[in-house]
């Protein structure tokens, strides 16, 4: 079922480092463009990667994003060491946020992160352990149904 990996790279994301926030997702987009991945896929993966990266920066101590490209799909695996999410279903509700006032003043934490990742993914899985961290599995199919 799973085809061989044609590209793989891992990116480290520091929690709390707003200055560097966005660098990993920017790099991911550049790689996908360079190897000729379709624009609409680059856009969807880019948004999912950026939102994931921002979640790590805002809430976790440390995280990593694994990018994996096969002939059929682009996969992002996001793991963080952070507080975890007590109620995943609630966190998936658009507009639900635990962001601090300061974060929201800076324009972050509108409660659209996870819903937006889900919207842009063909397959999306989230698991979280309170006190340990959160894991996201995001798949965007390369020759998918053209959903944007």
């Amino acid at each position, binding site marked *: 079922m799973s085809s061989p990996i*044609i590209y793989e790279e891992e990116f480290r994301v520091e929690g709390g480092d707003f200055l560097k926030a*966005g660098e990993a997702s*920017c790099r991911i987009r550049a790689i996908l463009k*360079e190897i*000729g991945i379709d624009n609409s896929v680059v*856009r969807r993966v*880019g*948004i999912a990667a950026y939102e994931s990266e921002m979640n790590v920066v805002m809430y976790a101590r440390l995280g990593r994003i694994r990018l994996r490209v096969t002939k059929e799909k682009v996969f992002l695996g996001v793991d963080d060491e952070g507080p975890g999410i007590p109620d995943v279903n609630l966190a998936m509700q658009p507009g639900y946020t635990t962001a601090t006032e300061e974060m929201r003043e800076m*324009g972050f934490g509108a409660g659209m992160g996870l819903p937006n990742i889900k919207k842009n993914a063909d397959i999306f899985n989230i698991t979280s352990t309170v006190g340990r961290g959160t894991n996201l599995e995001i798949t965007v199919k390369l020759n998918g149904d053209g959903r944007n």
Partner: protein
Amino acid sequence: MEEINFAHSIRVDENKCIGCVTCMRACPTKAIRVRNFKARIIDERCIDCGECLRVCPYHAIVPITTPSSDINRFRYKIAIPSPVLYSQFGQNVTPDEILTILKEHGFDQVYDEALVCEMTNLAIEEFLDENKAPRPIISCTCPVVIRLIQRLFPSLCGLIIPIEPPREIAAKNLREEVAKAMSIPKEEIGIIHITPCAAKMVSINHPETLEKSFLDGAISIQEIYNRIMMKVKKSKQSVMLRSQNQFSGIGLSWAIAGGEVKGLKYYHSVSVAGVYDTIRILDDVESGKLKNIDYLECMICPDGCVGGPLTAENRFIAKSNVQRLARIFGDKEQVDQYLVKRLYREKFFSFERAVKPKPFPPLDTNRDEAIRKMELKEATIRRLPGIDCGVCGSPDCRTLAEDIARGDAKIGDCIFIDGKGKRKE
């Protein structure tokens, strides 16, 4: 794949170029290489921003615009100057006077674009009213921004506002009006833009969103500057108290960065100028960061069109002149809202076709090959010194590594690598 036209509005004059690498290092899209002491523009990477034109110490980068003499092939000649023209001759000259002098330059008619700029503001608001998503919608006034999006940010093509820029709208309207009023066949009417940049030539000769441009050419402000200035100096210095005609203060502001969004009253908009800042903000748009912004104005030239490479006046003075004119004419609306609404509904302002992505070529069209080349590129980067000297003829070490991966250069081109492929000590 369909044939893509990469024609440009600048070229290298090989007689003047000495291969000094200044342009190559200034190029924001890394579209220039120096080979055999001559600069070469890579057509599919160039976006016509004109950065090379600004920095070349030898004037070896030549803009391609319409020569003044070319207008004589038309029976009826109309000039539509960019509002930037009004800012080029000091504070005491009215737009009226400039238009009058310009007309004596060999035109049968001159037409003020500022009014159409104001109309376009209303059309943009109509569009934003009607289309609540997606966001942000991006301005299409600067033709280089369109090219930049097509090449570097192809996934954002759908965010470009499908409303023609004022110069095209003005020309479209004039051609119909004049043809009817004077019974002249449309093709015998020559409509020429007076432009602060060469990039408009690309949008005229190879329009992205129209079957055929409504303009027939673009003469640079620099080309006509001296002759207008001579006449301005000769005519008695009239202190500008009142212009005979009322000009649109809202429209005049389009000559400077922030001018286009100034006319949008009901929407959250942002204005960005300069090629590097534009690339940065489009990167943020691609991340999905700016979804809460309705309208994004991007101007490739610093301070907007007054900073165009083919202007004559220093852009800071020009900007101040525009601001002064806008104050004098005020921001009272000059345009009939209902007329604009009707024209908008009739799709008078609309693109004939959408902007198509034209992404930079990937390292290889075969994905496995592309990945192999990317690995080669990364391995090569580690072998290069990373000081970006440009002596090899590529703008920096990263780009040399890419050129090597594509087969367009070799590791020996680096002056820090010896004949055996080893780093010199």
